[in-house]
C-alpha cells in the first residue's frame, strides 16, 4: 500500500506515529509511579528529577536546558506545601507541565503580512534538515491561507536542488523562480519577479550549510540583506542531538531568526531539539512538518506539545475534533446501546459514519496516550476504502440481520457477499470481528472502560491495551492538571456528569471501576451507580 493512502482525511498533522511518543512513555512511567504515592519526600523529588533528566537527555534535550528545567522543577517542588485537593504526584505533574509549556513557549506564531507585499520568508538550515521540502510545504500553507506565493530556489550548490523544488512546486501548484547565477542574485531577481507578478508571499530556499562554514554563512547573510526578509526561519531536524543548540545559536547570530521550523516530526525521535532551541534562542517553533505529504505541515502548537510530553497524548486535539463533528444524538444512542449490551450492526454503521467524519482511525489512536504501538500499527493499515467495504457489507443486510447477526446463515452470507461485491470470507471476517467487538463492549459494563481497553489488547493478542489504571490516571490527570478537583470529586459525582455528557456512560465508569464492577453491566441503566445518559 502506498503510504499516502493512509490517513488522508482531516487528520494529516499526526500521521501513523505520534510526536514525542517515547518521551511521553517515559513520563508516563515515571509519573504513574509518583501518582501512586501518598506523600512526596525530598528523596522522591530527587528520584523523579533524575528520571526526568534521563528522559529529557534521551530525548536529545540539550544538557544545559535539562539542568535549567530540572532546577526550575526542583525549586518549585521541594518544600512545596501539599495541596488539599491534589495528590503530590498531580502537583508535580502540574509543575512539570507548566515548566514544559513555559519552555516551549506560549502562543503559536501568528504570521502578519507585510503592508507592502511581498512578505518575504527566508529559510536556512543545515544540510539535510529538509529546507527544500519545507519551502514547498510552506508555500502550500500560504496558498491555503489565501495567499499567492512564489518560490525562489537559491540553493545552487546541491546538484538538482532547484529541480527538486520545481517538482515540488509543481505538485503544490506554485511557481518556482530560479536562475543559474549566484544565490544573492537569484534572491534579488526573485523578489523583483514577485513584485512584477504581484505575488504577496516570497519564499526563498537556500543551500544547506554548516554553521562553522564562514563563507557560506556570509552568503546567507548577504541573501538576507538583499531581500530583507519579514520572516527568517531556521529549519531544524527533529532528530537533531545536542548540537541543535550550537546550530541554532550560530544561525541566530548571523540571521536574527524569527522562528524555527521543526521537520521530520513523524519519525519516532523524541524531538528534544524543539525544547532546546526554543529555550536557548528564545524564538518560537513556528511550524512543524509531520509527514512526507505536502499537507503534513502546520503551525506548531506548544501547549499541545507539552501535554503530549506529559502523557496526555494529543487528547485535546481529538476532543476538539470530536466536539466539532460528533453528532450528539448518535453518540448518545451508541453509548446507550453499548451500555445496554445490545450494540447492533446498525449502531455500528452509525458510529462508523461518525468515525469517518472525524478522520482516520490511526490518527485518532496516535493521539491517545497509552495505546500500544502494535495497535497503532494495526490500525494504520485501515483506510477509507476499507471502511467503505465494511459499510457496503452491512448495508447489504436486512434490518433484522443488522439487529441480530446470529440469524445470518450460510446462504444469507452468500447473498450479502454478492450484494456488497465482496467475498463470503469478508462477510465472515466482519461478523467474527463484530462478535469479538461486542464481547469487548460488554467489558464496558463489567470492568469499565479500562477493562474494555484491556480486552482490546487481548483481541489483538500482542502488546497491551490501555490498562484500567492508565485509564483512571488519564481521567484523574485531566482534572489534576488544571482544576482543584478530580472528576470523581465534582459535586454530585459522576452521575452528575452523566446527565450532561453523552459519553459519561463509559467515561464515568472508567473513573470508578470498582463501583461499576458491582453493577454487572448495568443493563438498561438500572445498575447501582451505573451512569446512563438520561433521555432527552
Amino acid at each position, binding site marked *: 500500500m502506498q503510504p499516502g493512502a493512509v490517513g488522508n482525511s482531516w487528520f494529516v498533522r499526526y500521521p501513523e506515529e505520534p510526536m514525542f511518543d517515547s518521551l511521553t512513555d517515559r513520563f508516563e512511567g515515571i509519573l504513574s509511579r509518583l501518582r501512586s504515592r501518598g506523600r512526596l519526600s525530598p528523596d522522591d523529588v530527587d528520584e523523579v528529577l533524575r528520571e526526568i533528566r534521563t528522559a529529557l537527555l534521551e530525548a536529545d534535550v540539550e544538557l544545559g536546558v535539562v539542568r535549567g528545567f530540572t532546577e526550575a522543577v526542583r525549586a518549585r517542588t521541594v518544600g512545596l506545601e501539599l495541596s488539599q485537593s491534589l495528590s503530590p504526584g498531580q502537583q508535580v505533574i502540574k509543575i512539570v507541565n507548566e515548566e514544559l509549556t513555559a519552555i516551549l513557549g506560549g502562543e503559536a506564531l501568528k504570521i502578519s503580512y507585510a503592508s507592502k507585499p511581498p512578505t518575504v520568508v527566508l529559510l536556512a538550515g543545515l544540510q539535510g534538515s529538509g529546507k527544500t521540502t519545507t519551502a514547498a510545504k510552506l508555500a502550500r500553507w500560504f496558498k491555503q491561507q489565501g495567499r499567492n506565493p512564489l518560490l525562489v530556489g537559491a540553493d545552487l550548490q546541491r546538484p538538482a536542488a532547484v529541480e527538486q523544488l520545481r517538482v515540488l512546486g509543481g505538485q503544490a501548484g506554485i511557481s518556482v523562480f530560479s536562475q543559474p547565477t549566484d544565490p544573492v542574485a537569484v534572491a534579488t531577481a526573485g523578489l523583483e519577479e514577485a513584485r512584477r507578478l504581484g505575488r504577496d508571499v516570497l519564499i526563498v530556499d537556500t543551500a544547506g550549510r554548516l554553521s562553522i562554514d564562514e563563507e557560506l554563512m556570509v552568503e546567507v547573510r548577504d541573501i538576507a540583506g538583499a531581500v530583507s526578509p519579514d520572516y527568517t526561519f531556521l529549519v531544524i531536524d527533529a532528530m537533531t542531538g545536542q548540537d541543535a543548540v550550537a546550530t541554532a545559536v550560530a544561525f541566530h547570530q548571523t540571521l536574527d531568526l524569527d522562528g524555527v521550523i521543526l521537520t521530520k516530526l513523524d519519525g519516532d525521535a523524541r524531538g528534544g531539539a524543539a525544547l532546546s532551541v526554543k529555550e536557548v534562542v528564545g524564538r518560537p517553533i513556528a511550524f512543524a512538518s509531520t509527514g512526507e505529504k505536502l499537507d503534513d505541515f502546520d503551525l506548531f502548537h506548544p501547549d499541545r506539545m507539552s501535554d503530549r510530553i506529559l502523557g496526555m497524548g494529543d487528547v485535546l486535539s481529538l476532543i476538539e475534533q470530536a466536539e466539532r463533528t460528533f453528532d450528539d444524538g448518535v453518540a448518545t444512542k451508541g453509548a446507550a446501546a453499548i451500555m445496554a449490551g445490545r450494540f447492533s450492526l446498525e449502531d455500528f454503521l452509525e458510529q462508523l459514519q461518525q468515525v469517518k467524519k472525524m478522520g482516520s482511525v490511526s490518527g485518532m489512536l496516535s493521539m491517545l496516550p497509552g495505546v500500544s504501538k502494535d495497535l497503532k500499527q494495526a490500525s494504520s493499515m485501515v483506510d477509507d476504502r476499507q471502511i467503505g467495504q465494511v459499510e457496503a457489507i452491512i448495508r447489504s443486510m436486512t434490518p433484522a440481520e443488522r439487529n441480530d447477526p446470529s440469524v445470518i446463515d450460510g446462504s444469507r452470507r452468500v447473498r450479502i457477499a454478492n450484494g456488497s461485491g465482496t467475498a463470503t470470507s469478508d462477510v465472515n471476517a*466482519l461478523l467474527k470481528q463484530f462478535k469479538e467487538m461486542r464481547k469487548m463492549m460488554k467489558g464496558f459494563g463489567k470492568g469499565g472502560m479500562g477493562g474494555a481497553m484491556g480486552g482490546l489488547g487481548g483481541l489483538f493478542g500482542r502488546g497491551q491495551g490501555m490498562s484500567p489504571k492508565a485509564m483512571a490516571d488519564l481521567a484523574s490527570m485531566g482534572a489534576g492538571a488544571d482544576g482543584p478537583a478530580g472528576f470523581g470529586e465534582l459535586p454530585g459525582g459522576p452521575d452528575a456528569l452523566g446527565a450532561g455528557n453523552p459519553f459519561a456512560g463509559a467515561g464515568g465508569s472508567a473513573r470508578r471501576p470498582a463501583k461499576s464492577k458491582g453493577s454487572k453491566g448495568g443493563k438498561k441503566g438500572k445498575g447501582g451507580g451505573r451512569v446512563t445518559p438520561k433521555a432527552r
Partner: protein
Amino acid sequence: MITAASDAVIGLAVAVPVVVVAGGVTWGVRLRRRGRHPEPGTGAPEETKAPPVARPAPTAEVAEVAEAPVEVAEAAEPATYRSRMGKARGLLSGYLGSVRSRTKIDASTWDDLEEALIRADVGVRATDALVDDLRTRVKAGEISGADALIDALKADLVTTLSATSGGLAVPGSDAASSGSDGSVNDADDGSTVDVWLFVGVNGVGKTTTVGKVASRLAAGGNRVLLAAADTFRAAAAEQLETWATRSDADIVRGSEGGDPSAVVFDAVQRAASKGHAVVLADTAGRLHNKVNLVEELKKIRRVADRPPGRVVEVLLVLDATTGQNGLAQAKVFTEAVDVTGVVLTKLDGTAKGGIVVAIQRELGLPVKLVGLGEGVGDLVDFDASAFVDALF
C-alpha cells in the same frame, strides 16, 4: 481483499471504543478549558488531497560544492581527519582540558566527564556505563589522577569502537570474498555482481555518499554502476546522475515514483552483462518507523541479493548531528536489512557523532566511513583512535 476487510474491521473495532473514550474525556476537558481562549485554527478539517505524484520528497540531501580537487584519501587522511575534526573540537576539549588541569579526581571531575560525553551525543546509558566502569577502576586503585582517567576513557572508547572490524567489501579485498550472509564467494570470476546498498532516514546524505564512494571505487580501478533506486524524492536521480558523471561511473535510472526494486534489478542485470564489478544502490530516505517503507527496503535487498547479484555491503548512512534517535534507526534498519556498517556523515560541523558509540555498544555495528567535508576526497575510512582523539 480478505485481509483488507478484516484489517478494516480491526481498525473499526478499535475506533469505536476510542471515540467513546474521547467523548468521556471531552467533558473533563471542557471543564479544564473553560476560561482558556481557543487555539486559532487548529486541527481544522483541511481540504486535503494527496498530490498525484507519489509522496513529496521529504528532504534534501547533502549539498556538494563545486568539484573539489580529488585528493587521494588515504594519503591525506591523517591531516584531513585531524584538521577537519579540529573545527569541532573546541567544546569538548574545553571540558576535558579543565579535567586534565586538576590533579585530583573529585565529584566535579566525574560531572565534567559525564557532561563531555553527553554533549557529544554518546547518550545517557552509554555514558553511565562508561563512567561507572571508570569509577570502579578508580576505586580499585587501577587509575589515579585526572590525566590517567581521561586516557583510560579514551582507551575504552577506542576499544568499544573497534569491537567489530570495519573493513569495506571493496571488490578484490578479503572482505569482499564473503557475502553479507558469511557465505564464501566461490566465483569471483565475474559471474556475480557485488551490490552495496545505502540506506538511512531522510536528509542524512545518502546520495552524496554514494557519489563519493563511486569516485573512490572508480579511482581504485573498479568499474562502478550506480542504481538510482531513490525513485521517490524529486530530482534524486538527477543528483545522482551528476555524481555519475563526476566519478566516471555508469548509472541506471528508473522513472520517478517507479518501483525501486526494479531499478536495482535492472542495474544488477546490466552490471552482469557489461562487466561492472560493483553496483552502488542509492535508496530513498525513509523514516525507520514507517512500516511500509521499511518493507519496501527489505524487498529491495531481496531483489539485489538474487543471483547474479550479491549484497556485500548494506551501509547505514547516519548524520553526525543525529541524537539518540540514531540508535533506533540503527536497530530498525539492522533488523530489516542486515546493515553491515555505518557511514557517519557531516562530521565536519560542530556535531560529534557520539551516537556511534552507543550503536557499536548495543548492536556491534562498526563505523566504516566518515564524511569530513563536501569534497569527493572527504569521505575517509573510519579510524577509531583518530575519531576519539579528535573528540577530546
